[in-house]
């Protein structure tokens, strides 16, 4: 799984443009929320990047889950590499979503942190995936490491749908943006900025993943060349 240098460069440019559009939409184009106190209206715009960050973290862990399942069936190392790279990006965006959510919590809930079901389950997700890397670091033999990590990657993913559903199943102060009964909980101008944010972050995820896969491909190439040099 080696994205070419050209593909990576094209993705880098597309990602940059998409992000600039998303920033413009979130900061200038989107109207201010009218149903909240005027003093916290600017802070409400955090959702345009907070929700996409959370979405990307869940998407990344889903990719890790799928790649882990395929690895266990095929035993091909490329799927293990994909699972590893995607989990790294997942952790990155889990931290971004948690931090930005906490910053929104202060003006909205008057606290940086509360043990709400969504916040608690999301913290568990973060800890589970940090443990995923600890597990990988603890096993030296590559085939065994990949097998154990794949099994762990499948079980760790169970926490993701639990986190997604936590605000629907339990009493929580965290708002539900997409409710099947109530529809989209945002006004028309806000919804378009929100959707563009989701799209831009998805492109960013693909870009980061392609770059990260290229790093792993180069690691393998260096190892292969070193081996060839030593055996020559």
């Amino acid at each position, binding site marked *: 799984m080696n994205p070419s240098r050209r593909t990576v460069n094209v993705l880098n440019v597309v990602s940059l443009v998409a992000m600039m559009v998303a920033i413009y939409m979130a900061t200038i184009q989107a109207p201010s929320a009218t149903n909240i106190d005027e003093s*916290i209206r*600017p*802070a409400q*715009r*955090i959702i345009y*990047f*907070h929700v996409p*960050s959370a979405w990307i973290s869940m998407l990344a862990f889903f990719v890790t889950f799928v790649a882990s399942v395929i690895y266990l069936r095929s035993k091909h190392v490329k799927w293990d590499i994909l699972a590893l790279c995607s989990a*790294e*990006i997942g952790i*990155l*965006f889990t*931290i*971004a979503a948690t*931090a*930005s959510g906490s*910053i*929104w919590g*202060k*003006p909205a809930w008057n606290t940086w942190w509360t043990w709400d079901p969504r916040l608690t389950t999301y913290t568990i997700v973060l800890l589970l995936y940090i443990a995923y890397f600890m597990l990988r670091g603890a096993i030296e033999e590559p085939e065994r490491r990949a097998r154990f990590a794949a099994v762990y990657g499948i079980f760790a993913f169970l926490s993701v749908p639990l986190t997604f559903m936590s605000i629907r199943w339990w009493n929580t102060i965290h708002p539900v943006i997409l409710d099947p009964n109530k529809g989209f909980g945002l006004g028309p101008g806000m919804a378009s900025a929100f959707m563009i944010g989701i799209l831009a972050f998805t492109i*960013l995820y693909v870009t*980061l993943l392609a*770059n*990260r896969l*290229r*790093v792993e491909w*180069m*690691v393998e*190439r*260096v190892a292969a*060349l*070193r081996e*060839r*040099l030593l055996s*020559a």
Partner: protein
Amino acid sequence: MEYFVGAYVVIWLVVFVFVFLMNRRLGALDDQLTMLEEALKRQEQK
């Protein structure tokens, strides 16, 4: 406004650190790759 700026800075800082570290690693790997390819070429010429 400060909360909004703070959240955006945090999100972009996290992404920037990841990209920076990845690029640094990519640069180091590129150097290693060039060095190994040259060494292999020299060995084949001998």
